């Protein structure tokens, strides 16, 4: 057989050698015949200049740019050319001492060699730039001013959503996904800047310029044959409405909390406020590092995006979901009533209800409108004790499955990083908490949104979308389109998620209940003329461990809503931390924002209410005392209430 196959061995050897000869021929031409490659590599003959592309611009839903580019200048140095300059004067302009000057020169030589250009002082302040530009002739050719694009935020809003860019760290460069980045490159660190880095960054270009003996560029090398053009980053178009965003940030001033507004028909986020916020322009330009450390150490944590990172007990705003589960499981019908006389007493310690009059929970619609605690904790028990599950452990797991399908207890997948998943306890968690010994009474508070269930404001707003849409939602997201998109980043936001298969009639009874909340129930303050708002107030009890003891803190004020009732256009969740009743603080904010979004203006008769909201201070005086916020906060902190009101009621 070997003998028969001898020629084949030869053929294989021939293939191997043939390929090698091909490679060697190519190498011969590349390395010996062609001279331009070696010249390109010679730093003394050809200048290699990196051309930075402009980063993509971010537009809001009406096409206004909310994140664009500005020019600032870097002072760069070529160490070998630094001769006979007035070091003292330069140090004075840059506000450094001679020691520092020498250190920077040495660092540049170590980093890039003495013939190559290194950044000496990045992002000069306007004053330093002005002085340097006048006297640049004194420092040339060793020093040059090089323009660099920085990010600018014309509306000074949406800081936590847009995010900021920063210099790549050595640790990040180790990771393979950043293989294309070089030291000194900027990239998105948080927010949309980070999620959409790959489309925003664009593509760096390279120019090869011929140099003369004095190191001055003389023109393109080989007619630009080796140049690569820089390609600008792609622009993002958001569903965000910047007017609504700014209004939200105004209304949330002097408060801690969050507002999330979503378009239920697309899942596009209209506004996301995390208060207190800051002016994003603080994190660009020459004072970036100082501002960052101040924001980072501030007691009110302005860099913490409460809308997606903070978990709150949803409180009564959870009740519509409890009702939907009960309806879907078939344990109640919309006409189901519960005899509540002011407390739920079937599980030992009574659970108080704010209403005493008989019949306030005679059917589902009334129970929602009056926010009857007894009714909903009882629904939870009916759900998990339903005979068809065969035991509370299976029943509770089923409840948990429903709650997850409503988007609670796990991350939704929004397009900015660091989203938190909240909490919704499942059977395994219950077993752990009660060491296996528990029944439907153990955590019945979850039926009214207290205890072992915690949601982010985003999750609460998304739950509103589900009710508004009669059982479906799109994953909430900011970016509605990318110009010249060829990625698949947005695919998952175009997919419709269908949850609980509750009949339309059942949805209607929940929705009518929520309509009554605003028309004649606990949330009347949120009424808007000619718009049917469906909402739910919530007053979330809030316990925290303070100095080792479980302490009851002031309630969070919660309001969730969507509007209009038919063909809904906005779903919203508002949380004001430690403020008190949901109706008092959260509901007016939600209502003003709904009115602004749907009518594009706020009616004059609501001016007093808006003034009150703007003047409300719910932030803890101790926290406020320690906070350096006043100097950092953006647009709204620098303005008086009157100035803000003037923006919305210009003629009065």
């Amino acid at each position: 057989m070997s003998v028969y196959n001898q020629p084949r061995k030869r053929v294989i050897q021939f293939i191997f050698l043939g390929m090698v000869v091909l490679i060697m021929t190519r190498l011969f031409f590349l390395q010996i015949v062609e001279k331009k490659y070696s010249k390109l590599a010679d730093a003394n003959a050809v200048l290699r200049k990196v051309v930075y592309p402009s980063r993509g611009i971010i537009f809001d839903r009406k096409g206004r740019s909310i994140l664009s580019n500005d020019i600032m200048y870097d002072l760069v140095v070529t160490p070998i050319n630094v001769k006979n300059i007035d070091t003292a004067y330069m140090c004075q302009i840059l506000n450094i001492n001679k020691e520092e000057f020498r250190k920077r020169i040495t660092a540049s030589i170590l980093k890039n060699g003495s013939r190559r250009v290194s950044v000496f002082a990045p992002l000069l302040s306007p004053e330093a730039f002005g002085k340097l530009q006048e006297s640049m002739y004194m420092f040339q050719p060793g020093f040059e001013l090089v323009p660099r694009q920085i990010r600018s935020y014309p509306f000074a809003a949406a800081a936590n959503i847009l995010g900021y860019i920063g210099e790549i760290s050595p640790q990040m460069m180790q990771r393979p996904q950043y293989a294309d980045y070089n030291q000194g490159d900027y990239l998105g660190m948080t927010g949309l800047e980070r999620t959409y880095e790959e489309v925003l960054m664009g593509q760096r270009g390279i120019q090869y310029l011929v140099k003369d003996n004095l190191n001055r560029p003389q023109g393109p090398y080989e007619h630009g044959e080796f140049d690569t053009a820089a390609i600008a980053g792609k622009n993002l178009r958001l569903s965000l409405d910047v007017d609504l965003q700014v209004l939200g940030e105004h209304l949330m001033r002097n408060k801690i909390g969050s507002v999330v507004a979503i378009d239920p028909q697309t899942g596009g986020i209209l506004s996301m406020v995390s208060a207190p916020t800051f002016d994003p322009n603080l994190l660009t330009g020459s004072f970036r590092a100082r501002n960052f450390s101040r924001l980072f150490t501030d007691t009110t944590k302005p860099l913490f995006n409460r809308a997606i990172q903070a978990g709150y007990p949803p409180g009564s705003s959870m009740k519509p979901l409890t009702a939907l589960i009960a309806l879907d499981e078939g344990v109640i019908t919309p006409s189901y009533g519960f005899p509540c006389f002011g407390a739920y007493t079937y599980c030992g310690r009574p659970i108080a209800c704010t209403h005493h009059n008989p019949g306030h929970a005679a059917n589902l619609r009334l129970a929602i409108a009056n926010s009857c605690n007894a009714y909903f904790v009882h629904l939870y028990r009916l759900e998990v004790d339903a005979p068809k599950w065969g035991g509370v452990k299976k029943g509770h797991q089923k409840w948990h499955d429903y709650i997850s399908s409503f988007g609670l207890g796990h991350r939704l997948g929004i397009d900015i990083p660091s989203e938190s998943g909240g909490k919704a306890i499942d059977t395994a968690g219950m077993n752990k908490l009660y060491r296996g010994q528990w029944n439907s009474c153990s955590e019945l508070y979850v039926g009214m949104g207290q205890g072992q269930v915690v949601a982010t404001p985003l999750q609460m707003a998304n739950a509103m979308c589900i009710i508004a849409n009669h059982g479906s939602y799109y994953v909430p997201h900011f970016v509605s389109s990318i110009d010249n998109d060829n990625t698949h980043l947005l695919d998952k936001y175009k997919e419709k998620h269908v949850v609980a298969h509750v009949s339309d009639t059942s949805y209607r009874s929940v929705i009518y209940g929520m309509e009554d909340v605003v028309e004649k129930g606990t949330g009347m303050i949120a009424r808007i003329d000619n718009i049917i708002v469906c909402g739910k107030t919530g007053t979330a009890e809030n316990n925290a461990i303070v100095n080792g003891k479980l302490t009851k803190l002031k309630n969070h004020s919660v309001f969730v809503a969507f509007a209009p009732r038919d063909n809904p256009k906005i779903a919203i969740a508002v949380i004001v931390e430690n403020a008190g009743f949901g109706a008092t603080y959260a509901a007016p904010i939600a209502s003003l924002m709904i009115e602004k979004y749907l009518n594009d203006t706020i009616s004059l008769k609501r001016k007093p209410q808006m003034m009150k909201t703007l003047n409300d201070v719910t932030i803890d005086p101790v926290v406020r005392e320690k906070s350096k916020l006043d100097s950092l906060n953006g647009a709204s902190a620098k303005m008086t209430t009157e100035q803000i009101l003037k923006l919305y009621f210009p003629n009065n």
Partner: protein
Amino acid sequence: MNRRQQLKLTEGIDWPIMGLYLALVFVGLLSIFAAEYREGDNIWNDIIHLNKNYSRQIMWLGVSAILATIIWLTDSKFFTATANLLYAGGILLLLLVIAIGKDVKGSHSWLVIGGFQFQPAELTKLCTNLALAKYLSSLETDFTKLRARLIAAALALIPCAIIILQDETGLALVYFSFFLVMYREGLPAVLLVIAFSGIVLVLSALLVDKNILFYIFTGITALVIYFMRRDIRRHRSKLALIVGIYAFCSVFVMFIVPFAFTKVLKDYQVKRINVMLGKENDPKATYNTRQSMIAIGSGGVIGKGYLKGTQTRYDFVPEQSTDFIFCTVGEDFGFLGSLIFIGLYVALLLRIIFVAERQRSTFSRVYAYGVASIIFFHMAINISMTIGLAPVIGIPLPLVSYGGSSLMTFTMLIFIMLRLDADRQMVLR
């Protein structure tokens, strides 16, 4: 340990291959070092803390040495006995990656174990080679039959398909090198010719307008029918064959290639191929190749000297420790250095063929040819892409590129072959 035992331990080792292996690994380490080292780095500190590629590569070399020793001490019957089991294990591992793998640089082909990334697609080359050798050497296999050929092809193409699903097209292509082994074992030469024509067909379909190609095909077919008209009159079936080929080529050019380009391949892959063919000038795709060609081209005849290369040392060339490691050799040692370097590979490949042909068992011969084919494919494609002869598909240079998965796989491939070779007097099936 006395002298006799020592003799026994290294008895039968093929020293030329061993020497070439060590030489390549050594050059690799030097190149990775050159790509990373900057004046003033504390080398010992970096080695101890494993914070540079070269220091990690030293660690992988240690692991590889242990693996090689274990393999050398294993009875060669072990490999024939477990070949199918290893293959099944390899396939499972590949499927596992699809389930729980991690995305790195747009390919979903990495497992993360205790902080280390591992690419099973590398390891399955070894499993496939063993399984193919096992199958072809089985007494029941009659490789002149179509059935056996299809099974052998399936053995090679199943892992290939799974790896394509992981978006690691480069490594998937490597599995086509097994057809070279099958050719050696009796796959008709006409298949190689067809494969070659296929490549020409694809290239022409990409480069020439499809309508013009269609006219060319029609013209050629008409001429062939005219010149073979006597033959055709005698054997009607020949006409059918010619028309069949004509129809296939036309459909292929008119529909299949455009379909593959718009529906099957990823955008970036299409782009790279177009750039390769000079049809498109994409900065991102050309950047890597261009920088790499500048680095290699600037090496000249004798190179700039070790650690003197400016292009590879100032991070102009991307991924210079892994896929573009040849740039360091080309820049620092020039044309002569590259000649010697590629010479090492040629010597290794020819020696492996020599070793393969002296085997008495089909298993060992097929296995050794498999090793040669895999190394050849990797080496040829990798170096070609650094000098602009092939599109940039990320496959490492065997034994030289930085990377634990790759180094360990090639070490195991070679040492199993050395073990089989040392036992060639034994009767293996």
